[in-house]
Structures are given as C-alpha cells and as structure tokens.
C-alpha cells in the first residue's frame, strides 16, 4: 500500500475546451495532498485523470514509477488499484453497508472479506450499522461507509472529490480531522479535491492551488498563507488587501504604514513601486499607538471583529481585533504593524 504519485505536465480537454493545462506535481508515499481552487479550475478533471476516467492529450501520470496514463496508453480504472470517495458518496443504493464495503473485495476469500469488512467498519465506527441500507444512514455515516469501501481493498492511492462538501460545518471539520488521523494511521497516500480552503488546511500536508488548469503553487498550508508566490494565490487564500509601497532595500519596503521590515528577500531594485500584501492579522490593535486609521466597516465574528480601516491616503486595510475591543464605525483606531512575512509584487500599472 501507498506509492508515490507523479503527475507530469498533464493536459486534458473537454470537447474543444481546455480543462487542464500542463499541471504537474509529486506526492510522496503517506502524504495527504489537497488540490484547492475555485470552481472550473480543473481540479476535478485532474482527479479523474489520476483515476483513469479522463484521457490525457499531453503529459503522463506515474504511480509507483510506472506510467499509468499518457496520450497513447491509459490503464483502465479497474486496474489501477486506487480508492475513490465522492461528494455524493456514491454508495450502491441496492446494497447494505456490509456489502457496499465488501464491493471491492470480490477477489478475496469469504473469510478474508468478512475480516476486512469488520476491521474497516470498526475503524470508521459503524460496526453496528452493518445491515442498514445507505438511505437509512445520515450524511456523515454515508461518508464513513464510502471511505471504508474505498480503503477496504488497500488501494495504493486514495482519491477524494469534495468529500466533505455535502456535510454541515461542525460535522465537516470533525470528520475532516478524523479522516486525516485515520489515513495517517494506516499510512495511506491521498489526493483530495476541494474548493474550501478550510477543508484543505485542516486536511492536507501539502496543498496545490489550481488556477485555469495549472498548479499555481504547491506548498505547505502555512507557506501558502504567508508566502504566496503569486498575486492569484495571495488573493485566493485568506483575507487580505494590497497597499502601495516602494522597495527601500533588499529587506525593507516603504509604505504609508511606515518602513516595513520582515523576512523579505527581494532582488527588485530600490525604488520599484510594489503592492504589499497586508493580512488582517498583520495589523494589531494598539490604543497607545500614534498611528491611527478610521473604522469604516466592522463585522462581528464571535471571538473577534474584522474591522475595515481607511488610511489617511484613502486605501483600505483589514484588521482582526479580539471582540472585547468594541469600537464604533467612524472612530479612529490605534494600530501597529506586525508583519513577519512581507509579501510584495511589482505594481502593475493600471
């Protein structure tokens, strides 16, 4: 079980529309990877290609260093030894839980099959629901059955297509954690597709942000948030705004919020106009600060307020402030900069 996956510059088309355009990434055995992107970015197509349902027009896919898809050859899905979990669970409605989980074990002996099904159901905590039919289960239970069914044949790779999207918030996060622990426990390699960054951050060891058919950035969740390599990723991941600035040195940027210093390393020449990414958690509320900004909007998030502030120049920034600091719209808020990860992009002239 568990094999490295190499997706090498693959391209796919639907009719005459390009869906995936030279997408590449590698996944180490035992890694849980996420493909994250807005709808229509091609992430599901990549998953279908890995499973063997989508022909390639360019590139190749290697599992365990063996080519399983190329424009010339494509191994049938049933010969790839991959497990797959779907957004709609795709349980066989005419089979009960036990037989659903056993569906992929038809080459095993009866005793093997019974043992594996028992083990899998115990792992997902459904050993008492064996004889129920899919329609008698809740959404979360159905998802567990789908997972057990996919894992029962010990696939070399597990694929999940928006597995938690049909579930409600609370259950969604809990199940995401549970599934992560379970997969880590058995050492499975997994690719999950999602449009929800919270899902991706909860679940993935590595996350690939996709855009218009290619991988925009392939990184750890922490790095995606703090060191986005492109403007698209910076805007797509998390909240944040851009303010204007100019490069002051290889590690400093001048802006209206003062001279910002972080772990920036840039080879842009001094004086280059840039856009600086400012996250809501980069701006700290400080009543004693001399620097203030006027509150123009606030939204209550329970544990915190998200304030929209307008700087003297007119540009807006966001600030996340613990909710016991309640300030009214129109007030001036004292702020302090705490930018560790300074992210800048050369300004594109409008």
């Amino acid at each position, binding site marked *: 079980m568990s094999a490295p996956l190499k997706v090498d510059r693959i391209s796919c088309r639907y009719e005459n529309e390009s869906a995936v355009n030279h997408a590449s990434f590698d996944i180490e055995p035992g890694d849980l990877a996420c493909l994250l992107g807005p709808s229509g970015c091609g992430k599901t197509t990549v998953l279908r290609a890995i*499973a063997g349902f989508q022909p390639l027009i360019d590139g*190749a896919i290697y599992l365990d260093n063996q080519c*399983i898809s190329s424009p010339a050859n494509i191994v049938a899905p*049933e010969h790839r030894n991959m*497990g797959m979990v779907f*957004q709609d669970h795709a349980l066989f409605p005419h089979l009960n839980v036990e037989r659903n989980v056993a569906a992929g074990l038809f080459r095993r002996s009866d005793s093997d099959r019974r043992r594996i099904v028992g083990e899998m159901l115990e792992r997902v905590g459904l050993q008492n629901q064996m004889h129920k039919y899919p329609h008698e289960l809740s959404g979360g239970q159905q998802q567990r059955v789908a997972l057990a069914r*996919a894992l029962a044949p010990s696939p070399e790779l597990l694929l999940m297509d928006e597995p938690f999207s049909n579930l409600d918030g609370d259950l969604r996060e809990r199940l995401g954690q549970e599934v992560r622990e379970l997969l880590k426990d058995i050492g499975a390699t997994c690719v999950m597709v999602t449009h929800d960054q919270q899902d991706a951050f909860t679940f993935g060891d590595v996350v690939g942000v996709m855009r218009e058919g290619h991988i925009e950035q392939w990184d750890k969740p922490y790095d995606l948030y703090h060191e986005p390599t492109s403007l698209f990723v910076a805007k797509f991941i998390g909240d944040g705004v851009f303010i204007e600035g100019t490069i002051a040195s290889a590690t400093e940027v001048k802006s209206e919020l003062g001279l910002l210093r972080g772990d920036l390393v840039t080879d842009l020449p001094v004086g280059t106009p840039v856009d600086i990414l400012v996250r809501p958690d980069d701006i700290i509320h400080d009543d004693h600060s001399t620097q203030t900004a006027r509150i123009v909007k606030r939204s209550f998030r329970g544990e915190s307020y998200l304030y929209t502030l307008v700087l003297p120049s007119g540009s807006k920034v966001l600030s996340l402030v613990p909710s016991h600091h309640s300030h009214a719209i129109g007030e001036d808020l004292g702020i302090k900069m705490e930018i560790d990860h300074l992210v800048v992009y050369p300004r594109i002239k409008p």
Partner: protein
Amino acid sequence: MAIASSSNTEQAQYRFSSALINSADPWRIGTVVIALLAILPVFAILWLAFFPTENIWPHLVKTSLPRYLQNTIVLMLGVGTSVFATGVSTAYLVSNYEFPFRRMFEWLLLLPLAFPAYVVAYLYTDLLEFAGPVQQGLRTLFGWQLASDYWFPNVRSMGGAVMLMGLVLYPYVYLLARSSFIEQSPNLSAVSRLSGRSPFKTFMFVSLPIARPAIAIGVALALMETLNDFGTVDFFSVHTLTAGIYDVWLNMGNLGGAAQIASVMLTFVVLLLSLEYVGRRRQRFYQSAGRFSNKQRKQLVGRSKWLAIFVCAAPVSLGFILPFLMLLKYAIQYFEQSWSPEFREYVFNSLYVSTTAAVVCATLAVVVCYGRRLHRSTSMIIAARIASVGYAVPGAVLAVGIVIPLASFDNAMDTFFRARFDISTGLMLTGTTFALIMTYVIRFLAISIGSVESSMSKISESVDMAARTLGYSASRTLGRFQLPLLKSGILTAALIVFVDTMKELPATLLLRPFNFETLSTHVYQFASDEMIEQSALGALCIVISGLLPVILLSKTISQSQSLASRA
C-alpha cells in the same frame, strides 16, 4: 515527458498490457452499429428515390403528388390546431384551477392515448353513418325518410379525420403542457398579476410563453403520429402521402415510386424533428429549478365550474369512454363469432412480434445508453441521437427503407446459392417476420432509449466511478451496479415498445409475411369491410394493452402529487 526511465516504461507496459482501455471497445462499436442500422432505411430511401430503376418523379409530380401533399398539410394543420386547443386548455384547467373531479380528470385525460386512431375512426363511422344509431334516432325523432331530407356531416372526410385524430392525439400536448404549467413558479404569475394584468392576460403573457417549448414538443409528437397514420386516412379516403406510398407500392408495384414519396415525407420528418429539437433546447432554459409543490389552485364556482368540467369531460368521453363502451358492447355481443382459432393465432402472432421487439429494443437501448455514458464524446452523442431517429419516421416510410436493403440482400443470396448450389433461398429476410421486427425495433428504439436513459441519468456517475476504482470492469459495472438499479426503467421501456408494436398498423400491413395476421391487421381487414363488430374483440385487446403505459403514466402523476402533498 520522458521522465520515467526506459526500463520503467517497459515494466509498466508489461504490468498493464492486458488492462489498456481499448478505443474500439464493444460498447462503442455496439452503439455505432445500432446507429448505422437505424439510419440505414433513410439512406436506402434517398438512394432509391434519386437513382430509381424506373423514374416516376415526373409522373408523380404531374398527377397525384400535389394532392397527397395538400391533404397531408391540411390534415397536419387541422390536427395540430385541434391538439393544441384541447391539450393546452385541459392542461391549464387541471393545473391552475380547483373544480369537482379535477384530480380524476388529471389522469382520465390521458386515456384516449390508448386508442389507435384507426379504431376510433371505425367506431365513429359505425356510430354516425346513415344506418348508424345517431342518424336513425334523428330520423325517428323528426320523421325524416331519406338522406336528402336533412343535412348531416359526413364523418368519412378530411374534417372527420382531423376531429378523430385530434381526439386521440391531444394527450401528447396535454401531458407536456401540464407538467410545464405545474413546474412554473407561481411567483412569475404573481408578478404579472401585481403589475395589473388580468388572469387571462397573465396566462397569455406568462404561462403560455413559458410552456411554449413543451407545447411545441407535444404538437410535434402528435403530428409525427398524424404523419404515420394509415388506417384512418385509408378508411376515410383522405389521400395523404402515407396513403400514397401504399397506392404506389402495393397497387402499382412500384417500390421506387414509393421511395420517392417517402423521401418527400422525410422532409416533413425533418421539419417536425427540428420543431421538437428547438422545443427541447428552449425547455432547458425555461424549466425552473425547484418544484412548486404547494401550488395554490383557484377555486372555480358557478358557471365557470361547469364550463371547466365540460371542457375536460368532453375529450375524455368522446376520446375514450364512448368508443370504449361501444367496443365492449360489440366484443361481448359478437364474442362467439370472434373467439375463433384464427383469432387465437392472431393474438399469438401479435404477442410474438411485440415481445420480440420489446426485448430487442430494451437490450439495444441499454447498449446505446451505456455506450454513451462510457464515452462522453461528441461522436457517441451523435450516434445515440441517430439511433433514436426512427420514432419520427412514419412506419410506411420505414417499411420502404427496410425492404430496399433487405430485398437486395435476399436477391444477392438467392443468386449466389442458385449459382453455387442450385438451391433457391427465396425471401430469407423480407418474406419473414425478420423485416417486420427490424422495422418495429428501429421505429420504437427511441422510446426505449428515452426510458432507459432517464433512469440511467438518475444514477450518479460517481457510482460507476466507485465501481471501476473498486476493480470492476465496464461490463461488470453494468451488470452488478447498473442493471439492478435500471430494472424498472428497462421494464417500462419494454412495456411501451410492446404496446406500440401491438398497435402498429402501417408497417405491419406492408411487411407482414404472406398469410401472417396480427391483431391490428385483423382489425383493419374486418373494419375496412365494415365489419367492425366482428373485430371488436381484437380492437379491445389492443386498447386494453394500450391502457398499460397510460396507467403507468397516471401513476407517476399521482405519485408526484402525493410526494408534493407530503413535502
């Protein structure tokens, strides 16, 4: 691209060599072959029409063709208007108003669909002719003696044909218009009412335009049946194109001429298909996402209540209850004479061809639908569309198109065997039920594809993907996970094809082997000799079997109602 070293690639090929998806897999080939078979008659007709052995085009154009054309167009315009008026008005009433017996009318209005037009034509002629009970009663009542004493419309006329066909074909429009009216958001009408339009203006401004695509589909289907009809127009001596095919083929023995008339009819087919296609394309945009289950129906009172009951009761009683009672009465009265060994043979023949056609259609439908599901390419979608083109082609036209290639096959075989072995193989295909069943299959394949497709589309594609990733091949996925879920869809498909084959007359008359009678040809034979009473039992069998799919339809309607009331 060449990331893997060459040794890796070799190893990979060795490991997976038996597992490559073959682009020429049986499902793809099956679908394409079925599509080619379905389109074969059309090509055969066009080929023979433009390269005939004996050119009768000039003769046709000079003599009968203009009359055939004119009659066909008048008939279609008449039937089109009639089914539109009846179908839309009844559908609008039952979906927007509340009045006594409304829920009953909802399914009763479908019943006339069980009657083949020709049976209704025979019955009404019997009822309304000079010697029939209606005119007799009038004569007794008013003391008239001769036909010249009074005026009475002749039912065996173009007008009669329009009336009677409209009476049994309006349910196509009713069914589609009704579901369109029900699915319309009540908010749309509310907006129109709030902006000051009266209920009637709202109907014209909102409801009708939104239902227009659905109505267009219904009218197109009804007109396809009109174009297909032979029994009625033959009996009423309305010389349409279909009647022309019989005349030129059977009476003049000119297959090339029949093919030429058939090619003219294909123009109508293309027009009707385009009408249907445009309707279906628009429908996609017009259909609202949600079902509006608790739609408020306006309670009708006083005169409008009685008017609504009358508008709904008239087509039901004239299109079903009255003819059904007549048929029942004759069937009982003449049971001794009708229940003969010959009759039992006709029943057996009908059951045999209908069952065979149903089983073949259902099987081919599964192949086509699954083939398209596996390979979602443009070519497969086109192939599946071509495979279902037969329903639009009139039976007589199909018969011509099938006889052409089968006869040349028979002739070629016969010549070959005579030359080689001095044996005459005779009419191997055209002289047997093979040609007949092939025609049924091509004509009704669309129905079975539609039914199987609609239940297959309810199975999420991820179910297939789940089965495949669990190690089942495409064929085993079909067998293990699709067929159990498709059971009812396949049964419905087979049932509807079975019933349509039982009713089918035009192609059966042209293609049946010598001395091979089915119930429908038996009814035709007797009734056109004005002996409807003796063939009433046969007609009753056809109508009762025709009720099966109608009951199925009305069950779906009542189910959606109870679902809606529960929601």
